[in-house]
Structure formats: C-alpha cells, structure tokens
C-alpha cells in the first residue's frame, strides 16, 4: 500500500504554498497602500466561492485529478486540449516561481553569480523531490508551515518598537476600483493557486475532503498574510511603495539592543525553502499532467526534460526583474483567472449538465 496524504498534511501544504507567494503583497501595496490588508480580506472572500467549485469537483469525481476530470467531462479531444492548458499553466507557474528564486538570490545574496547556475542547483533539488516522492514532501510542509509561522511571529515581536499603527490611517481611502484589483490579485495570484493541489487528490487518504481542507488551509494562510501585510505597512509606511521587497526591507530594520540585528538570513532560508516547496509541487503537477496527457503510466521519464525546460524558461521569461514586477502587477491576475476560475467553473457546469459522473462510476453519497 502506497503512502497517502492525510488531510492535515494537505492543510499545511496549502498554507505554506500560499505563504510562499507573499511577494505578491508588493503588487497589493502599489494599488492599495495602507489599505492592503483590506485587499487580502476581500481576496479571501472572493476566493471562497472559487474554492467551493474545486471542492464540488473533487466531491463529484472522487480520487481523480483535474486532468482526469476534464477528460471525463469534455471527452477525448476537448478534454485533452483543456488538460494541455492546465499543464501549461502549472508549468508557467513553476517557471515564474523558479525565476523569482533566481531574482531573489541574485539581488540579495549572490549578485555576480550567473542566474543559470543558481537555477540549475535549485531545479535539480526540486527534480529530486519530484522523483523521490511528492507525498513525503507534503509531509515536510507541516514543519515548513510551523517554522514560517514561528518566524513571522518572532519577527513581529522584534519589530514591535518600529510599529506605527497610525500608518494604517486613513483607512478605506482608495478608489473602489483599486480594491477590486487588489482582491483579484490576492485571489488569483496567491490564494487560488492552491488549485495545483488538485493534481494530488488521487493520493489523498480522503479525497472527498479536498475542498474543506483546502479552505481551512487558505484560511490559515490568510491570517498569516494579514499579519505580514499589517507588519509591513505599520513599519514601512509610505516607504512601502518604493521597496522592491517590503517584507525583506522590514527585516533589515530589526535592531533590538544591537544584539538582535542582521536577521535577514533567517528570512532568506525560509523563503528559499518555501519556494522550493512550491516549485516542487508545481513541477510534479506539470510532469504528472503531461504524462497523463500522453497516456504514459509513469511520469519519471519526463522529470529531467521538464527540469531543463523550467531552467531555460525561467532564464528567458523576463528580460529584467522590472519586467517581472510589471507582469505581476498587470497581466498575471487575468492570466491566472482563466485557469483558476473559468476552466474549473466550466468543467463543473458541464459536468452538472451532462449529469456526470455516470451511474457506473457514481460513488455512494
């Protein structure tokens, strides 16, 4: 009997997956400034119905991943096309996360090292994780989530004297349009990205609990994101907008009695571990989706091919980090919405119309 993912493990995986995407708070700041925390709450609210779609799909088609579901719903040809879309989306996300590792290491730690070298090392480790078992990796997520939560609280305490709560005022001062954009960014570029865990549903102990567990994980992550955003705003104030990495800038300000200072290595370590987790999950989703597309039983043979693709992709996707920022703050949310909302919603509707799954596969409700 193969090992299966427990619901608790999935919950923590979802949470740490989202916490890793907290760089998008930077995009949020540019739209909502001191009101960014509202954007996170709104984003949480609009992502709930989307998560319910995922939950409903998982309930309807127990123990199937999203590729199998879309093939079941849309038939051979259209199903394959849609599956290819999903696989492409997972791949593109993996590439973007890999790229952000490269940018992060290059700006913060090793400015002169070629990005290719950093990425080769990074993707190599991820490929190892994918090869040796993604199930075990989700087990690690408990530790990852715990460490990052503890660190975030620890940093919060160390920064206590820097917090200026008047930075939150005036509240509700932005244009309504900006709140919508902000909420959309949070939902599409962070919270709903956990859609990728749909590829792990067949490995769950209780696949029917996918929706509920994912919602719980997203809730935990939202709380963490709220703490991070609130801290950044309270400390940085009007400086938030110019900072490349607000959360990192905040950390560099820690100075408690000249002893607790220069703590950014803590952030660096946890940030890279979290991104490793994200890329591995997406990497797995890509290769397993692709092998399913070609009806190949094992995905092992594709791992290295896609690893190479990810490295070259990450190296060439943006000319500069500025372009990356531009992408994050403009097109990314709309791009993601197609895959995270429209396709799953269409799948659910089509399944309902066609009364799928049919009698022979129906599970006892």
């Amino acid at each position: 009997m193969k090992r299966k993912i427990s619901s608790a493990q999935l919950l923590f995986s979802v949470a740490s997956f989202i916490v890793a995407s907290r760089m998008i708070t930077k995009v949020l700041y540019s739209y909502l400034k001191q009101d960014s925390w509202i954007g996170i709450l709104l984003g949480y609210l609009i992502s709930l119905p989307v998560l319910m779609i995922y939950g409903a799909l998982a309930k309807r088609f127990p123990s199937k991943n999203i590729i199998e579901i879309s093939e079941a719903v849309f038939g051979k040809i259209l199903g394959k096309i849609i599956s290819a879309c999903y696989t492409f989306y997972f791949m593109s996300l993996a590439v973007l996360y890999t790229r952000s590792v490269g940018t992060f290491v290059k700006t913060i730690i090793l400015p002169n090292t070629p990005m290719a070298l950093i990425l080769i090392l990074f993707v190599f480790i991820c490929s190892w994780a994918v090869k040796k078992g993604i199930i075990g990796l989700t087990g690690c997520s408990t530790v990852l989530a715990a460490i990052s939560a503890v660190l975030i609280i620890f940093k919060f305490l160390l920064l206590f004297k820097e917090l200026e709560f008047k930075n939150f005022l005036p509240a509700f001062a932005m244009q309504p349009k900006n709140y919508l954009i902000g909420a959309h960014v949070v939902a599409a570029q962070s919270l709903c990205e956990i859609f990728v865990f749909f590829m792990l549903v067949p490995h769950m102990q209780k696949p029917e609990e996918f929706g509920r567990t994912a919602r719980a994980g997203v809730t935990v992550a939202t709380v963490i994101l709220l703490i991070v955003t609130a801290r950044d705003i309270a400390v940085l104030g009007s400086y938030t907008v110019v900072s490349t990495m607000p959360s990192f800038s905040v950390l560099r300000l820690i100075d408690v009695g000249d002893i607790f200072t220069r703590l950014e290595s803590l952030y660096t370590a946890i940030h890279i571990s979290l991104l490793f987790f994200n890329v591995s999950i997406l990497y797995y989703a890509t290769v397993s989706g692709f092998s399913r597309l070609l009806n190949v039983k094992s995905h092992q043979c594709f791992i290295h091919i896609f690893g190479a693709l990810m490295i070259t992709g990450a190296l060439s996707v943006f000319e500069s980090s500025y372009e990356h920022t531009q992408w994050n703050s403009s097109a990314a949310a709309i791009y993601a919405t197609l895959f995270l909302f429209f396709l799953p919603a269409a799948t659910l509707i089509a399944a309902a119309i066609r009364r799928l799954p049919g009698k022979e596969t129906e599970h006892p409700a």
Partner: protein
Amino acid sequence: MIRRIGIKKRILAVLAALALTSGLTACFDRRELDTLGIVIGVAIDKGETEGETELTLQIANVAESQSSKQGSNTSKKEESGGSSFFNVSHSGKTVNTILRDLEHMISRRVYIPHIQVIIFGEELAREGVRDSLDFFARAPEARMTLYVFVAKGKAADILNVKSLLEAYPSTALMQRIKNQDITSDTPIVTEFEFVRTMMNKSTAAVLPIVEITEQKDRQRLLVGGCAVFKDSRMVGELDKKETRGLLWVKGEVEAGILSVELMGVCAAAEIVSAKSRVNAELREDGTIFFRITVDEVQALGDQTGITNLAAPENLPALLEESERVIADEIQSALDQSWELQADIFGFGEYISRKYPDKWKDMEDNWDELYQKIEVEIEVNAKADGTGRTIMPLIPE
C-alpha cells in the same frame, strides 16, 4: 529504507551532494575579509565642479585599531604611520560612480554594509539630498539603520575630528546621537526614518546638526538642534529649544532637563516620561484647528536656594512653571515652522487621516493653509519623586 540502497547509489548520492554544494560556495561573489575596505562613515559635500558631488569615505583600518587597542607598542604605530582609520575623497556625478572610481585609489573593495553615519554638508543639503540618498536606499547590501546628520560647513571635516575614547570618528558620532535621548534636544534620525518622512508629501523631515567647536586647541564635535528639509532640500534650522518643542509634539521626548526659575531659585526638572496627542479639527468656518496635548511626568533633579520646591505648597507652582516652559518650547517650534513654511509636525498627515476626502483638496496648497492653522497647546505636568532628598540641604 536505507538498507535497500546499494553502495553504488550511496556513493553517487554523496558525489551529487558534493557537486551541488560546491556550486553554493559563491565563487563569483566571494569576499574575503582581508580584501574588504570596510566603510564606517560617509560624508557627502557639494563638489567643486558644478553638478558634482564630493564623497568622503571613512575606512576602518581594522588591523591598526587592534594594535592600538593593545596599546603598548606605540613605536610600532608610528612606524606604520597609521591611525585606526583613513579618509578618502573623490568627486563625481552620482554616488555609485564615485564609489567605483574610488576603487582606483584604495587597495581594497569598498564594503558598505557597516556604515554607521552619513553626514551631509550644509551646502549640499540646501540644494537637496535626494540624489545622494538614492544609492544608499537602493544598493542591496546597504542598510538603512544608520544615522544621518547635517554638518555645519563641510561634512568631510567632521570625519577628521578624532575622538579620545573611540577608535573611529564615525563611531564617536554614532554614540553621541544614540545618547541624545537623555537630553531630547536633538532628533535621532535613521536613514530609514528620514527616507520614510521624505516620501511624505506634506511633512517636512528633520536631521540633527553636527558642528565642530574648538576647545583649548582641541576640536570637538557638537551635536544639537536640527535642520529642516522640505522636498529633500534643507530650508532652515531649529535651535535646541525649538527642536525639543518639535519632539514634544512628535512624542519623541524620552528624558531631559527642564530649566525652570521661580521663587528666586533655579531648578532642573527631570523629565521622566512624556506623551503627546494631536487632535485635528476642520471647523465649519473654515479654520484648521489643532489641539496639542502633552502629558509629562517629572522628578526634581536639583535646585538652588533654600526654598523647598518639593514641598506640597510649592509643588503646584513648580509644575505650572514647567508647563509654561514646555508650552513655550512648543510655541517657539511652531513659530519657526511658520517662518520656514515647513510642516515639521506632520499636521497635514493628521488631517489626511481624519478627513481623507477634504485633504485631497487641501493637499496641493497645504503650504499656504499651514500658515493659517490655529493651534492650542495644553500641557499637563505631573510630579514623580524628588530623588534621595526631600528638601535642600539646610539645617532645620
């Protein structure tokens, strides 16, 4: 699990791990300690050529400062001709250009994360510091927890004033500003705080002033008062009294001495703690009204004469006089801010927080509106202790 892995695979795993970690040794970015010129202080002045900036770096001579700490071998020190630091200057268009040019002049790579102070020359400050600060806010390795000053005269001269106690002039200056919280005559401003205020449209930022004084043929550094910046340009100064007036309102007074005179005696009231509140109000007749409330707790530090100021019947008078002194300090800061047309208190921010909608119309002509604001100052002093004595040293 482990039992099942063959020896070949294990060797392979170890080799792979070694190969991977060797990629992380940062060969491209290696920086060894003996190749670094650790910059501990920076002075920025206006260059002699128009449009140029003169940058002076104070670089720590780590080996030398250690041998001088051991102290015994003075002859060796003379032989090496060195002090524990050296200063090097160069001019150019931008800070980063100058830093690279400086590499031609010193044997080591300039290393900036340990800068303790940045000093702006007054002339440069009056023309604007935004361009010079850009590098220090942008460079990935730079830190924003360092302290920023404005020098009266040339900033580079400040870095030449040796301290008797500290190895480096920069450290001496940094220690001095860190201790200012016991007088509250000088604002303590880190680069980050300065930048954060500079990013605010309506509030004027302040920086402490440092100057050189001659005392018995010895140069000393004197820190006190502050320079006021509007749109990154220095527009004027506050003296010590006005500075404390500003700090009262900002709630940054932590300790200090209030000199009061009453009943024919002088006394020093020690500030134990202070809190401030600013309440903004847009009245219907169009006046912009602020109420500043300062709650101060004080102890009697010392006094002259024989009238016992700590006695219950005299205490109210002492407190009242202290309140008057504080209010006077605040008023003088206000007057000076009107004179300089600079909203040093951040009154605009109070309006923007409380009346965000109306602020949008006021924001652009805040400079004019600021001249017309009405301010009410309310000070409440409370007594807290008289030290180890309860009365002056007089026989009963």
